[in-house]
């Protein structure tokens, strides 16, 4: 829009985002996780194209595990939709807290749809860490590069896992499924510099399983609202004391 200089810096930002995925531990975690998801899709009788399309369109590991195992086991469509929808509620606060970092004056809403689609835990954690170092006008392109890099890694792994399915020993499959919680925890810890982040993490770790154990409906949503609000109130209280 504003000449060749602007467009070449956009390309550079996209390439920088794409390149950042190679040094990100998430690429390796995503690769492992999506090997597991590809193998799962194979075992439940889906085609390799279906598995690949689910990675590109759904782009959320836990939602895909639920979708594949529930659909494959013959669950009713409405039940599957509700289970997938509940597991993806977390995407809403992630998008809301990431987009203000991306917006520059005059950014159109539709420019934000692709970064919003790419939003998943990997992308959110790395974007919050890396975006502040980027000039604001380049951040959308940087995010799209990051998302494309992760997407290509996960797509390759989905197809690889699909064809490896029969050859994976059970302990290997268990170790791949374990990657998601361990990597989510470590990367959230790394991003937790403020007391607010640490308290939210600690409260959520306790409340998530506790609400599920007590049979509270929408347990993840409630652990987020209760745990996050409690952490925020402690943070405000401390700020007020200063």
């Amino acid at each position, binding site marked *: 829009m504003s000449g060749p200089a602007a467009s070449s810096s956009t390309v550079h930002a996209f390439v920088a985002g794409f390149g950042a995925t190679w040094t990100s531990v998430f690429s390796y975690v995503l690769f492992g996780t999506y090997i597991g998801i590809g193998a799962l899709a194979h075992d439940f009788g889906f085609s390799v194209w*279906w598995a690949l399309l689910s990675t590109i369109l759904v782009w959320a590991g836990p939602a*895909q595990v639920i979708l594949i195992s529930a*659909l494959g086991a013959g669950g009713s469509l409405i039940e599957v939709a509700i289970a*997938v929808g509940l597991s993806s509620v977390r995407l809403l606060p*992630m998008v809301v807290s990431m987009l203000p970092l991306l917006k520059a004056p005059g950014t159109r809403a539709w420019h*934000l749809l692709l970064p919003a689609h790419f939003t998943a835990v990997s992308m959110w954690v790395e974007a919050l860490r890396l975006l502040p170092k980027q000039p604001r006008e380049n951040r959308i392109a940087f995010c799209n590069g990051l998302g494309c890099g992760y997407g290509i890694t996960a797509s390759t792994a989905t197809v690889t896992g699909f064809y490896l399915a029969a050859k994976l020993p059970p302990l290997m499959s268990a170790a791949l499924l374990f*990657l998601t919680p361990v990597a989510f925890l470590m990367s959230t810890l790394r991003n937790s510099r403020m007391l607010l982040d640490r308290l939210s993490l600690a409260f*959520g770790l306790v409340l998530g399983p506790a609400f599920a154990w007590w049979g509270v409906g929408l347990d993840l949503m409630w652990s987020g609202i209760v745990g996050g609000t409690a952490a925020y109130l402690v943070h405000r209280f401390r700020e007020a004391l200063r």
Partner: protein
Amino acid sequence: MSAAASELGAYLALILVGFLPSEVWRWLGVVFARGLEEDSEIVMWVRAVATAILAGVIAKLTIFAPGVLATVPTPVRLAAVAIGFLAFMFIRRSVFVGVAAGELALVIGALVFGG
């Protein structure tokens, strides 16, 4: 149902009960984020909620493990997360070190205590 029709059904199901129930939250996020500043109080609160939900997902995946991961005993899974956490805290706060230590502990624990 013919093979082609059931294949088509699988793609329709992917869109209707996989893509849409996830994507709708991202679209709502675009709508809600309009006009918000990154350092505003509401964004701080929303980030705390997102972090707490994510923490809930982490704990639930560890305690109520999916698929073959459930065959690894629960104390082994919990110990593996704790070992990964300690490795992360004491060795340069490296995500890679934490993940590798946790995975190694899980595999060794499953081999020793039965998988």
